[in-house]
């Protein structure tokens, strides 16, 4: 699976994120305090304004901490739930069902990776519907209450504004949870039923395998074609059947009877819905001179995700894994590899390019090649090659000491340094993975291309240890939890917007946050001036004058003014971007669709992010709500 922006480890993320969060919250609070002060000062004078603002902040603190009452919040949540039911939010569920009905026509089960399409579809449909739902209920609820004046009866009770907002949020969150669970259940059955298919196989489809002129007794053949694919089947002399993997799945095969009367029963598809738990290493490149390099070669792809190395040269892809121990992997390392192959000449068209797999001890430099493998880019679905580094490596194809070479300002540094090289290490014919090759839990896995003129390419997530398989259902639930988090953020923004805007305006504002959040990376790029064609004003100028984005503008006063205006606009954009939630990153559909377990660390990070956005937003909503008159 492609992971373009991997998350840093939790602690590193947390430290950085916390600092940014505190900074943004502080900045926004200051701006808010100033604006609040300004509004009061215009009416009552600067001194009283300070006093009132201070009083309000104290009040807020008490309203959120001291007086807050679970009973009141649950009462208001109950009201929100009742309101949702009255607003027929269940209709969303019906829409979801209708969507799925139509999707059945539209998702091609004959696709290369039907599971990916099915899962992507159900999860994105769920996401969009949940967002729509959140958008509507959040931005219409409070304004409707205010317009109908039902709010008058409520706020004349000892209810805190904080409770009104939190009550709504929790009520709607509960509704969203229930609907989400419903959707998850329906999705699960939709996917399993949609992917389900049966092949048939009759005795006529089978021929006996000949080897070296004689019949081996094994039968082989192709099943019937369903959803645009067939499976190759082998039945051995003993009547044991095996179905080969095609399009990412396989079937069970049962042979009833024998000889010409044998019947073959093929079971439902298996292996579609996985949750691999990968352990990633850190990828480094070694160039053809044997020097460490940050990046691999670019073979002319527009997409620079994978770096390439040259075949039949010292170049290698090196993944360093940490924390390897016999306790974790007593048998050896089950690796999975996705490899890009680039040929500079056709070579033998019918033969795949060969590569080697080796492990190396990072301290002693002992390098043991364990396997020569064939690589077929994109051949299998999923495009993953399974490799295995056994615990006991006997008679490996190649053993040597390899020194890593690093180019530093002081010259080339060798690791291990020449005086520490111990050639006697290579004398053995049998190696133990942990004794000989793991140093302090660290291990290097090397992938090289052994054919001249051909190239291998990889990115960090392309090789991992498949530690175990998690539960697909839990993985699906995790993805739904991701959707739930986004829903919460949208609810928070919607409720806050509705404290001071009318319903439709609040909705538009929330849509703005939503769209901005989904394209936050772009907004930030825009704010940092990393896009072509300048900022908003310069772009506008270029649009009107039909100037292309690359040409320099003629220097002069006009251009100067444009650029200055853009600096201000960019500052504004940056401010906006910093309070936009990174909604685009919450989608875990890809993980589920490609059969990878969503790491709990990610779940934790996203949860914290949700709180980091929802809480300040609700607090802001509190101030908006407090400072407005409820009656008109």
């Amino acid at each position, binding site marked *: 699976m492609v992971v373009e922006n991997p998350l840093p480890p939790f602690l590193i993320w947390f430290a950085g994120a916390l600092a940014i969060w505190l900074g943004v919250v502080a900045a926004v609070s200051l701006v808010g305090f100033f604006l609040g002060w300004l509004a009061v000062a215009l009416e009552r004078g600067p001194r009283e304004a300070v006093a009132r603002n201070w009083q309000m902040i104290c009040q807020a603190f008490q309203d959120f901490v001291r007086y807050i*009452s679970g009973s009141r919040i649950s009462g208001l949540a109950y009201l929100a739930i009742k309101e949702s039911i009255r607003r027929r939010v269940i209709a969303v569920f019906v829409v979801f069902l209708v969507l799925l009905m139509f999707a059945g026509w539209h998702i091609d089960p004959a696709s290369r990776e039907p599971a990916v399409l099915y899962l992507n579809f159900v999860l994105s449909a769920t996401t969009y519907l949940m967002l729509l739902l959140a958008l509507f209920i959040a931005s219409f609820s409070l304004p409707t209450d205010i317009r109908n004046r*039902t709010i008058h009866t409520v706020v004349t009770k*000892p209810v805190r504004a904080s409770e009104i907002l939190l009550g709504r949020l929790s009520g709607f969150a509960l509704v969203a949870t229930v609907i989400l669970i419903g959707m998850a259940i329906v999705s699960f059955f939709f996917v399993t039923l949609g992917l389900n298919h049966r092949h048939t196989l009759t005795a006529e489809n089978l021929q006996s395998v000949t080897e070296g002129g004689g019949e081996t007794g094994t039968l082989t053949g192709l099943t019937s074609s369903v959803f645009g694919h067939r499976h190759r089947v082998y039945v051995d002399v003993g009547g044991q059947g095996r179905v080969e993997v095609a399009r990412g799945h396989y079937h069970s095969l049962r042979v009833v009877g024998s000889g010409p009367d044998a019947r073959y029963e093929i079971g439902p598809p298996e292996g579609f819905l996985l949750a691999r738990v990968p352990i990633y290493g850190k990828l480094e490149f070694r160039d053809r001179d044997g020097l460490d390099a940050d990046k691999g070669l670019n073979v002319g792809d527009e997409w620079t995700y994978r770096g390439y190395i040259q075949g039949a040269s010292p170049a290698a892809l090196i993944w360093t894994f940490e924390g390897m121990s016999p306790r974790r992997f007593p048998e050896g390392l089950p690796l999975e590899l996705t490899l890009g192959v680039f040929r500079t000449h056709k070579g033998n068209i019918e033969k795949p390019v060969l590569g080697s797999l080796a492990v190396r001890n990072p301290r002693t430099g002992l390098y043991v090649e364990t396997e020569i493998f064939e690589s077929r880019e994109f051949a299998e679905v999923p495009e993953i090659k399974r490799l295995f580094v056994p615990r006991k490596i006997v008679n490996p194809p190649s053993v040597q000491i390899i020194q890593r070479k690093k180019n530093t300002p002081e010259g080339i540094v060798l690791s291990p340094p020449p005086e520490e090289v111990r050639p006697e290490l290579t004398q053995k014919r049998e190696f133990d993975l942990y004794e000989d090759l793991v140093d302090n839990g660290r291990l290097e896995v090397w992938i090289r291309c052994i054919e001249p003129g051909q190239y291998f390419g990889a990115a960090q997530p392309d090789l991992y240890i498949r530690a175990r398989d998690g539960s697909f259902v839990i993985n699906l639930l995790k993805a739904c939890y991701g959707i739930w988090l986004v829903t919460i953020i949208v609810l928070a923004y919607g409720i806050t917007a509705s404290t001071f805007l009318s319903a439709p305006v609040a909705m538009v504002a929330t849509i703005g946050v939503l769209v901005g959040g989904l394209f936050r990376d772009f907004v930030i790029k825009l704010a940092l001036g990393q896009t072509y064609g300048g900022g908003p004003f310069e772009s506008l100028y270029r649009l009107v004058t039909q100037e292309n984005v690359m040409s320099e503008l003629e220097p002069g006063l006009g251009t100067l003014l444009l650029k200055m205006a853009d600096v201000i606009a960019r500052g504004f954009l940056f401010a906006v971007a910093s309070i936009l939630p990174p909604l685009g990153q919450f989608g875990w559909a890809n993980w589920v669709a490609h059969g990878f377990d969503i790491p709990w660390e990610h779940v934790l990070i996203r949860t914290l992010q949700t709180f980091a956005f929802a809480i300040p937003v609700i607090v802001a909503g509190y101030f908006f709500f407090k400072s407005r008159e409820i009656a008109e």
Partner: protein
Amino acid sequence: MQTGVNTPHAVPEVVVETRNLTKIYRDFWGRQKVRALKALDLTIYKGEIFGLLGPNGSGKTTTMKLLLGLLFPTEGQAIVLGKDATDVSKNERIGYLPEETYLYRFLTGEETLDFFGRLFNMPAAVRRQRTAELLELVGLTGARRRQVREYSKGMARRLGLAQALINDPDLILLDEPTTGLDPIGTRAMKDLILRLKDQGKTIIMCSHLLADVQDVCDRIGILYQGELKELGRVDALLKVRDVTEIRFSGGDGALVDDVKQVIERRNGKIHFIGNPTTTLEELFLQIIRESEAHPGRRVRGGISGDGR
């Protein structure tokens, strides 16, 4: 029904006090649009029923909303139960019946009361008991499982009253309590108000139905165009010493003529003969006539008063 008069002077505990309470509505640009309430000074004591009178748009509802903190005063201050009107915690001891019944139509009567009970942090058992009592009190026990949307206007009104009493409040604000009620309902409402007063509660009500005010209020304030025009005890305000009213029944036209003759013979002056009108109405209309003749004159309230 005769107004049961307590002795307001005995325990002059102030429940509501407004000082120079002013509300100006502004438009989007901050320009003054309407002066809804002008420098109101008012003091209301514990245990009394205070009526706010005035035609539509005279500022009585604005006053109520200011007292409840639904609006913020432009100038001046309102102190309710010793706290600023914008302080939420004062609501613990307040019951409010809005002008129209603003209740959630998708809740049943029982759910409504339970919901509002929760807002007072009442334990579940207390809520259940209180809900049952109040439903009984307003006569909605039979309809407690029905959604408010199915209620008639009168039923909704009664439920509104019930929710205002859910916390057994010390101060009750009733905005037009008898609108939408049939005569029997109106009577029952008035009875209830008096009963509450007997329990020692302070009641502020506003209405434009003069008969209601006259029947139950101890004191009234008359608002016109945001200004307090009249303030005082109802009986004192209405007592007209140089006029005697004769009421009788069972007579015909001849009898009326006889009475007329008797009065004329004794040099009495007949103002009016016919079915009697509500006298508060008279007063009210007179104040309005005067106000229009001499705009700007107003009463400074605050002192307890029986008079003009």
